[in-house]
């Protein structure tokens, strides 16, 4: 080899023209592919279209029926286990995934009928002391990433970002939001059509009350948050979808209906009950809770500028002026969104907490805040493990998730539980109508259904949550 290396004479000769041409074509093709991968595709509304991007094994995973697998996994784990087997089975699971059995409630493992129930276990009171900090962890888990959000792009891992608009959705012009829906009627929102439910109810800690009961009787449709509260609240009888609660006339007052929107209007799809963990509260307790949250929010009872719906002031709309910085891409200026009107000296931040299979899988409120709306994005159910997050671009935008949006002491606040293959079911205690990982045709990525919680608290115009209050959780399948 040494001889060959040292003694072989170097003989230069020109490449055939065809080889050079082929090389140029290959280089050009590679450049084009890379450009296409980096290109941000926008839909007709200017929102980024997210597509599966990543190495070949990501595409193989994308071809799997993950949602069906997830539901099958949930079904299998909902099967009741023999009582004698439960302690052995759950101890083995706890050993394999590092669960601390000393902190669960109930501690008797025979009390958990299935692995699904054990997975959604509760913790004993007092095992999680709550720090005095303004922001505390909403879950047991691992901090995957955190930082400031620049140009409305969130960093998934170093070098890979995704659009915040695509992640939490944008307010569409004409959409019904908490500001023009003060009664908190649940609204299913789809960017392409607005579907309004006219049942009269407000949701307080998972218990539904008629709006008439909640804000007091009387005629004339006096809406708004200044209506005095009177009487004792009693849960409203659940009406089947299509019963038309507003027309019954026995719900304590005349409530103005939201307008139906063309042919697209339809009844709200009843999604069934969701188990409510929070204890039932009296009106006095509810008001005391509201006042407590309001105090923590330091008197920010009024809607903060960040949540105030604004005119887009987009030149395309002809409104003139601009509240958004000049030079922002047109697709970003096209939408009104709370994340675009921050207070002076404020920025957007993010943090990602990953819950491993052995972790306690309920999530809690990370601060004192008011949830004004939720947006349910039906999507894929890829694993959200750190391994996957490093490989699949836009993972959190592709997956099914529930964006809970509202306000806290410093303005906008959003919390987004993101589902995964093994835990496709996201539960929110105060939202009995939310159903995730359901069978059926999936809407295209980016579409979401929206519910508004403005009727949950007369005082705060949303669902108030105290720091570390349990909000919901992830269930298997």
């Amino acid at each position, binding site marked *: 080899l040494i001889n060959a290396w040292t003694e072989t004479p170097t003989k230069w000769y020109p490449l055939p023209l065809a080889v050079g041409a082929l090389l140029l074509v290959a280089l050009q093709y590679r450049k084009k592919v890379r450009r296409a991968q980096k290109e941000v595709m926008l839909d007709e509304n200017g929102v980024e279209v997210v597509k599966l991007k990543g190495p070949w094994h990501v595409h193989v995973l994308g071809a799997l029926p993950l949602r069906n697998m997830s539901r099958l996994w949930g079904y299998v784990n909902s099967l009741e286990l023999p009582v004698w087997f439960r302690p052995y089975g759950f101890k083995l699971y706890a050993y394999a995934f590092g669960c601390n059995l000393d902190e669960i409630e109930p501690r008797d493992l025979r009390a958990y009928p299935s692995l699904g129930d054990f997975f959604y276990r509760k913790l004993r009171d007092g095992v999680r002391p709550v*720090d005095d900090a303004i922001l505390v962890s909403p879950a047991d*888990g691992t901090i995957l990433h955190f930082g400031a959000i620049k140009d409305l792009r969130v960093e998934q891992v170093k070098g890979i970002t995704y659009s915040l608009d695509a992640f939490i959705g944008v307010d569409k012009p004409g959409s019904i939001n908490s500001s023009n829906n003060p009664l908190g009627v649940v609204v299913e929102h789809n960017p392409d059509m607005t579907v309004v439910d006219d049942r009269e109810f407000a949701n307080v800690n998972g218990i539904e009350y008629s709006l008439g009961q909640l804000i007091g009787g009387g005629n004339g449709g006096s809406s708004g948050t200044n209506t005095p509260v009177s009487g004792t609240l009693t849960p409203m009888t659940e009406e089947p979808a299509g019963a038309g609660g507003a027309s019954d006339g026995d719900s304590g007052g005349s409530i103005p209906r939201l307008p139906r929107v063309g042919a697209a209007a339809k009844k709200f799809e009843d999604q069934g009950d969701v188990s409510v963990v929070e204890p039932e509260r009296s009106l006095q307790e509810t008001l005391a809770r509201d006042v407590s949250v309001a105090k923590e929010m330091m008197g920010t009872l009024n809607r903060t500028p960040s949540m105030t719906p604004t005119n887009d002031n987009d030149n395309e709309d002809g409104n003139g002026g601009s509240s958004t910085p000049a030079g922002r891409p047109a697709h970003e200026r096209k939408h009104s969104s709370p994340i675009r009107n921050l207070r002076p000296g404020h920025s957007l*931040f*993010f943090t990602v907490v990953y819950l491993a299979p052995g972790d306690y899988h309920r999530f*809690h409120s990370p601060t004192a805040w008011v949830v004004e709306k939720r947006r349910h994005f039906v999507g894929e159910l890829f694993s959200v493990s750190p391994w996957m997050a490093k490989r699949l671009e836009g993972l959190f935008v592709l997956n099914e998730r529930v964006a809970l949006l509202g306000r806290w002491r410093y303005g906008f606040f959003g919390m987004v539980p993101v589902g995964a293959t093994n835990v496709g079911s996201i539960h929110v205690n105060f939202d009995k109508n939310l159903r995730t990982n359901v069978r059926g045709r999936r809407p295209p990525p980016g579409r979401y259904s929206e519910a508004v919680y403005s009727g949950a608290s007369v005082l705060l115009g949303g669902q108030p949550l105290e720091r570390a209050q349990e909000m919901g959780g992830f269930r298997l399948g």
Partner: protein
Amino acid sequence: STVVLVFEAPTEEFEFKVRPGEKVKVGQKLGDV
């Protein structure tokens, strides 16, 4: 599963009190002003 928090806070004053990869528990300090 994952929980993502997105929030507005004072740019200069807000500070995260955790590190990437750190294990956290419910109620543990994440950030403060």
